[in-house]
């Protein structure tokens, strides 16, 4: 458990040997996207038990899916093997492409590697036509008996796109709680022209100038010009009631290596009353969720929740309710435009090809089994002060251009550190009294920092980015000597926003605050290189 994780920018020249080693590693291991997963047309997965890690030190007996080496899947966007057969919660994110026309299919071969006493298992793919072969008949679909397998053939029509969930269809009240769930992403069959030109073109150019690798799965979430995006993150919400997991573990142990169908070879776990104590995003509780994807500390919880973005980038949020409860996911910093529910685009009734009709939400409720695709951005528009701390005095180093485009943003120079600045407030001061080389004469008397408590993600000044922060208050920020441990004034100095469940008791881990469904999203100035390779 690392309490704090950050993405760091280090001058390349200083660390050339380390960079070379990292490059060599990159050649042999997969690069991981911000919504990491596997792609292919034939996936092999095994339901099996393992212990997942919680930040209070608890190891919780769980069931999850592994992505097995026998299949053809590859990590998205690069060569190599992603499927090592390790059980994971959530299950592997399956990424498939919608065909240009007609229908395509992919298969999931599910092997039941659960203890015999756990009985049969299966997978549902809500929203899709599924054909099955093998296994035995279950209530909702064909099931795999202990040690056996079943093959699901899923039809993906050319109109399909977006984020979907999959989960166990056998004794779901227990098996989903135990961890048998995952995500399915369908990439649209075509890319709208708007997604590769204009703002999205310059945003991509700006990432390239800063040597950032673009890790989005596609330029658009749907075949719609309103569904373009520059960056993306996945958030799967679930809970754990430790009593249920403990009871399951005890009964499985007691049953031992019993014979399937034999007397006493079964478990009977009470799934009510339901008192969850762990509240997870992508299978991890805060602060573990802010560690890297595939961090070795959490072999069975590979996916993180650690979003970063630059001003003006349109960020796709893929949100899934995988637990039993609804969770109000509150995104600090701006609203989210809902694109779609359960992979169904919500378009205007009168102008469906151009206009969106999904609501704008600052709290996106996750509902069990339901997915939301939404677009978020942050620009600082309307702050009424210059977030970059610019100064009209050309002798001060903050002097910079801000030439507004037709929407009022500085997008003419993708290499500028104030690329996408909101120009109406350019040079407009916020602080009344001078400090450093930022403009003064503004409306607000900034407080004496010595009488306040400083947060671990406080960038050290009211301003965005190391340049503005150092010019305003110096290299330590207002918190000498190193109060901002996760977002240092000279390195990142981003604007940190808490993204969390607003049923606030869910931002706890087994009665401990902070924890649970909570992460810090960082808006980083262009000086900071956002590296999503981990």
């Amino acid at each position, binding site marked *: 458990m690392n309490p704090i994780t950050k993405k760091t920018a280090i001058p390349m020249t200083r660390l050339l040997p380390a960079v070379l080693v990292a490059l060599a590693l990159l050649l042999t291991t997969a690069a991981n996207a911000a919504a990491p997963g596997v792609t292919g047309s034939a996936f092999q997965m095994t339901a099996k038990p393992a212990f997942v890690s919680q930040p209070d030190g608890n190891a919780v007996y769980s069931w999850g899916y592994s992505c097995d080496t026998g299949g053809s899947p590859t990590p998205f966007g690069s060569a190599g093997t992603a499927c090592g057969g390790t059980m994971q919660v959530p299950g592997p994110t399956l990424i498939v492409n919608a065909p240009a026309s007609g229908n395509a299919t992919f298969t999931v071969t599910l092997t039941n590697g659960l203890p015999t006493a756990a009985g049969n298992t299966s997978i549902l793919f809500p929203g899709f036509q599924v054909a099955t072969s093998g296994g035995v008949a279950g209530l909702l679909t064909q099931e795999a008996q202990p040690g056996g397998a079943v093959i699901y053939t899923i039809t993906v029509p050319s109109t399909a796109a977006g984020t979907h969930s999959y989960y166990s269809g056998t004794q779901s009240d227990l098996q989903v709680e135990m961890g048998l769930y995952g995500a399915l992403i369908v990439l649209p069959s075509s890319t709208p022209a708007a997604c590769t030109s204009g703002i999205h073109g310059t945003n991509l150019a700006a990432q390239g100038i800063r040597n950032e690798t673009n890790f989005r799965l596609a330029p658009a979430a749907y075949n719609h010009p*309103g569904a373009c995006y520059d960056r993306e993150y996945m958030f799967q919400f679930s809970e754990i009631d430790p009593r249920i997991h403990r009871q399951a573990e005890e009964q499985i142990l007691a049953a031992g290596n019993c014979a399937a169908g034999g007397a006493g070879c079964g478990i009977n776990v009470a799934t009510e009353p339901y008192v969850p104590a762990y509240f997870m995003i992508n299978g991890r509780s805060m602060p573990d969720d802010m560690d890297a994807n595939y961090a070795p500390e959490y072999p069975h919880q590979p996916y993180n929740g650690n979003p970063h973005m630059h001003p003006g980038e*349109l960020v796709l949020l893929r949100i899934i309710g995988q637990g039993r409860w*609804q969770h*109000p996911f*509150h995104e600090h*910093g*701006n609203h989210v*435009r809902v694109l779609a529910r359960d992979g169904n685009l919500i378009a*205007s*009734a*009168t102008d469906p090809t151009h*206009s*969106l*009709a999904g*609501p*704008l*939400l*600052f*709290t996106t*409720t996750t509902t069990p089994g339901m997915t939301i695709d939404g677009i978020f951005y*942050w*620009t*600082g528009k*309307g702050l*009424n002060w210059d977030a970059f701390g610019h100064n*009209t005095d050309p002798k001060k180093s903050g002097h910079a251009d801000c030439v*507004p485009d*037709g*929407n*009022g943003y500085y997008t003419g120079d993708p290499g500028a550190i104030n690329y996408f600045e909101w*120009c*109406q*407030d*350019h040079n*407009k*001061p916020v602080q009344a009294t001078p400090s450093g080389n930022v403009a003064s004469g503004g*409306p*607000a008397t900034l*407080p*004496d*920092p*010595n*009488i*306040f*408590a*400083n947060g671990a*993600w*406080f960038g050290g000044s*009211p301003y*965005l980015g190391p340049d503005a922060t150092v010019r305003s208050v110096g290299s330590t920020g207002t918190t000498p000597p190193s109060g901002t441990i996760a977002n240092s004034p000279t390195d990142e100095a*981003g604007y*940190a*926003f*808490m993204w969390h469940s607003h*049923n*606030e*008791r869910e931002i706890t881990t087994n*009665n401990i605050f*902070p924890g649970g469904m909570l992460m*810090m999203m960082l808006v980083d100035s262009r000086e900071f290189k956002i590296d999503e390779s981990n």
Partner: protein
Amino acid sequence: MAIRKLHQVFLLTLVVAFGTLAAQAQSFQIQCPTSTVTHPVAANNNSEPAYAGPTYTGTTGYGTQPAHVNGAIKCQQISGGDGFATMGDGTQTYLFAFGPLSGLADIANGLPGTGFPKDFNTLPPTTLMPGDPATANGLTANSWPSYPLPTGAFGWNGAVGLAPDTDCLANPTCSATIPANGLDGHVDPRPIMDVGVMNGNMPAPLMAIDEDDEFFLTLTNVGQVMRPDLFEQHTVHFHGYPNASAFYDGVPDASVAINIGGSFTYYYLAPDAGTYFWHCHITPPEHLQMGMVGQIYVRPRQNRWVGSLFAGLQAQQGDLRTRCDSSDILCSNPLPAVQAVGPDAGNDGTKKYAYNDGDGSTRYDVEYPLQIHGFDPNFHFVGMTFNPEGFTDMKDKYFLLNGRSYPDTVTPGPLMTQTTDGLVHFSQPLSSIINIPAGGKALLRIADLDVTEYQTLASLEIPMHVVGYNAKLLRDQAGNNLDYYTNSITLAGGESLDVILDVSDTAKYPSGSIFYLYTPNLDHLSNDAENFGGLMTEVNIN
């Protein structure tokens, strides 16, 4: 050895130097400038000017002369501390709470405590007493219930603690830099402690601003006398503000948190019109459950526009900050697809709207903030002791509309609670009675701040016309309204919604009739052990 000593002396000197530099003022202070860069003429900042056109046109901005100066300056001061509230079954419940430290008379009258500089920067007429305005004065003379002393009418809305900066006035160099009356944000801490300690309110003080306003909100942490073991910091998170800065977002992890004995002034240009809310962001499962939750709403520019509403919204397209079209995926009020006709198509300058709708679809006659919340009595009891509270077993048993449960929801005027200082304090200033003029429309600005579960509020008979959600107009990018009718709404903690109750059909909703808002979560119609109460109130047709 000698070298180390030298280092120590040097360090000490540095510390002293920094301390001197940084200590610009005392720890308690307020801010309410009479003019700013954005609102340069002080005389124009004490009322809302009519909206005559865009502030900036085209791509112009700061540094060029604005075409129009819109909006004004608004200020408010709140305390962060503790207090007690009275539940529907008579139980006194301990709160971590915000209380009013300005706009006291307005707050006691159930109004927003937000004021123009001329209101905020007004010295009190008499010495303020602990428990004010409850102890020294009633709302109207001699009216304070069961209080033995003759009382005067309380009508003062200034900032508690406000005092001339006499030290600065005595120094010619300094006095030249501040207003002649010496009101430069300096405060006398004694009245702040006298009034602020144990003056917690549930809900927290109401705030309301207009689009284009600059808002200065000062949070003053007076400490929690019931919990001397705690050194709780507090903050204000403006929930739902688009494009907030992390610095003023009120998240202690991402900014600064205000210690006991300190003041911090949050500064915002009013965001897009809508129903927002605010709360402390320190240990949210604890501080929100304990009561640090309030409402804030932003009124639209359209209220200040005279003429065709469509033309008014067209005028707003002239300023890139207020423009809304498909180039911005996060704006909700493009020009309406269908232009309104008839009496609702224009504003004579007196009509009120929830959003800049351009078609009058969100017009209302009266507005009511309605905050949904829940209290777990066990958590509040443990919160009053020195023991740590558990979160997993949190279970709300009081279900609150504006901090009250039925039948207190239908008690007019503020509720008072006697607290551990022996004095009665205004504890729950907002009644939940909805009074609609016959034939009129009421806007319910509903916010849910429950920390444990979703809550449903239903309307018997009068349909709920939902026009806004999460502080945004319900309209698609092509300009089609997506408003809908329902008889119940369900919200999570952290959501808001705008409902219009339209009783324009006086045959169905005649004067004198009473209707009900209540929760179909039937176990929420209770006050702890009492089986009838909870989340319910009355709608009166006047």
